[in-house]
């Protein structure tokens, strides 16, 4: 599909292993939340040359992410990351922090900048400032609607990346909520975030029905996913039934958020979106196929959402095909 780019994000060799990459045009390596994630490509820099070269040999574009919230003490590592990513042949650095963007420019490194989900791109004027610093692509904040993204792309003359599927990044912190001790003293680090952890609201007013049974994540109230230093949506952003609209609006760069998901999630969701994008771009009659719907529902433990893209509450699902199966709240 010329002109369309489907990206998947993977933190580490553990996440890359077993992920079927055929559906994807590009891979964004590394984890922006925590430097201590085991095998984090953005931290374990010796891993980058091998990973980048093998992906490029496979015909993929390769990007490397950077820390979402680097303190001053983290900046020397950021400088090393920029150098390592550039030397390894990565094609862009995903940037969430303005200080990192400035360092990239000040170093005179030719690596392009892609502004990430935490860069707080809300307006075309903001995107223009970042463009002047070397950004060639922006992923607007989750709260920015598709209509606003169209304006940003047009007025700032910059490529806009759209989250097509996966958990929505809702917050970043520098204190890991999965640990009870300091990071370097807690035996649960870095293994704690390898497993899924969900936050379910307890307030009686937010609950309905009985507590979830074993193996069941039920949204009796608000459900969020915690990854220790980040809060993600409980529900999966899903734009499957809206792909023709996205293409006709001029969007062509789409992300499948693969961080903290299984290889099966990345592979199967990627496969669904590859097929769906091919159909949507073909001009033939588009409809969500039963097997696609089954796949996205099977992987969405808490349900689907896409409200932000339509200027609504983030956890709502706007559409007419896949809304069934979401719980009330």
């Amino acid at each position, binding site marked *: 599909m010329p002109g369309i780019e489907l990206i998947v994000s993977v933190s580490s060799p553990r996440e890359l292993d077993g992920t079927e990459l055929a559906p994807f045009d590009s891979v964004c390596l590394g984890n922006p939340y925590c430097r201590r994630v085991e095998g984090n490509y953005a931290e374990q820099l010796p891993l980058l040359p091998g990973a980048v070269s093998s992906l490029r040999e496979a015909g993929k574009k390769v990007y490397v992410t950077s820390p979402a919230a680097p303190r001053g003490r983290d900046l020397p590592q950021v400088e090393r990351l920029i150098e390592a990513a550039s030397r390894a042949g990565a094609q862009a650095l995903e940037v969430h922090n303005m*200080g990192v963007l400035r360092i990239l420019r000040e170093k005179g490194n030719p690596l392009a900048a892609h502004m990430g989900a935490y860069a*707080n791109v809300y307006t075309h004027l903001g995107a223009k400032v*970042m463009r002047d*610093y070397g950004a060639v692509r922006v992923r607007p904040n989750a709260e920015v609607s598709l209509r606003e993204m169209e304006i940003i792309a047009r007025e700032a003359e910059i490529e806009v990346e759209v989250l097509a599927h996966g958990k929505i990044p*809702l917050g970043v912190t520098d204190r890991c909520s999965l640990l009870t001790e300091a990071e370097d003293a807690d035996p649960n680090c870095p293994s704690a975030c390898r497993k899924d*952890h*969900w936050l379910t609201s*307890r307030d009686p007013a*937010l609950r309905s029905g009985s507590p979830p049974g074993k193996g069941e994540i039920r949204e009796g109230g608000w459900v969020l996913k915690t990854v220790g230093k980040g809060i993600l949506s409980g529900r999966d952003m899903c734009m499957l039934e809206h792909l023709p609209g996205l293409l006709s609006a001029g969007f062509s760069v789409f992300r499948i958020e693969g961080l903290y998901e299984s290889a099966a999630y990345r592979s199967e969701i990627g496969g669904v979106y590859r097929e769906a994008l091919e159909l949507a771009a073909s001009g033939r009659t588009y409809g969500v196929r039963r097997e696609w719907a089954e796949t996205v529902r099977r992987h969405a433990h808490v349900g689907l959402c896409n409200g932000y893209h339509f200027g609504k509450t983030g956890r709502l699902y706007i559409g007419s095909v896949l809304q069934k199966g979401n719980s009330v709240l």
Partner: protein
Amino acid sequence: MAELLASGGTPEMVRAVLDNGADAVYVGAKGWSRRRAQYEMDDDQVLVSAEYARSLGKILRVAFNTLPASREIPLLLAKVEKFTSAGIRDFILTDVGAMRELSLRFPGIRIHASVGCTIINSDDAWFYKDAGATRIVAECRMGREEMRRIREEVGVGLEVLVHATTCYTLLGRCTMSSYTRQESRVDAEGKNHFLGSPNRGGLCYRVCLAEWNQVGENGETEAERLILPNQAYFLVDDIPALIDLGVDTIKIQGREYSVPLVGRMVRFYRALIDAYMEDRSSFRIDPWKEQMAGIVSARDGERREKTKGLISESLGA
């Protein structure tokens, strides 16, 4: 000498904080600041309050520190034009594009890069300085070494919040509230108040302060009655060090609190700063900490009630 800046949620609060010793007061332009509309001011109230501040030789700073939509930029420019024409020169902004645009269109204005910019390292500070900020607000957990670097190496003014909240997530990078509820409410001027988004409209439902259970991938309960840390704090011990560091602005947040409580906070910090400035060598902090305990208790009581109300309100979606 560090400027003492305090919140002006209403014209009455503006008078209270200035009369109680603040050097400057900030107010939110309605629909444009990081608080809901009831704690913001319409244009006439802003202008009257600015006149009052000017009559005392003090400063009124207008907050436009939400992140707007692109189509709202002309509204922002028109409002800033109106305020600058009336002599207001001080503004608080978050959107880096709006910051650059205003600094180019209105030479001589002073721009504070808001706490919503999440400035956590010295290169962040450089970036916002380049975009037109004359003063930057340090992220609430920033250490003194980083502050020193910003002050000495970046050469931009530094503002530190001495009464605020350290949200669980980094303030300005959180959308938990709007994920649970967000509404579009466009006012007569065409500004969307984005109810439920603290970044865009100011109203945060504080969902992080609900009680949570943590559940593992097999549905097992890992922790019960979890509270994500979101602490309101007062800095007292740090005030002498902040002054010694050359911090330019010491800010007391609190537009949503009662006027008497905010007035009390201002009196406390005014007296503390003045006492330290008068005699640094023999200054002792302990008596001040005892005084602060009473203010903390009053603040916590007001905050608890507000949080309960906000969480309940978010359920109305």
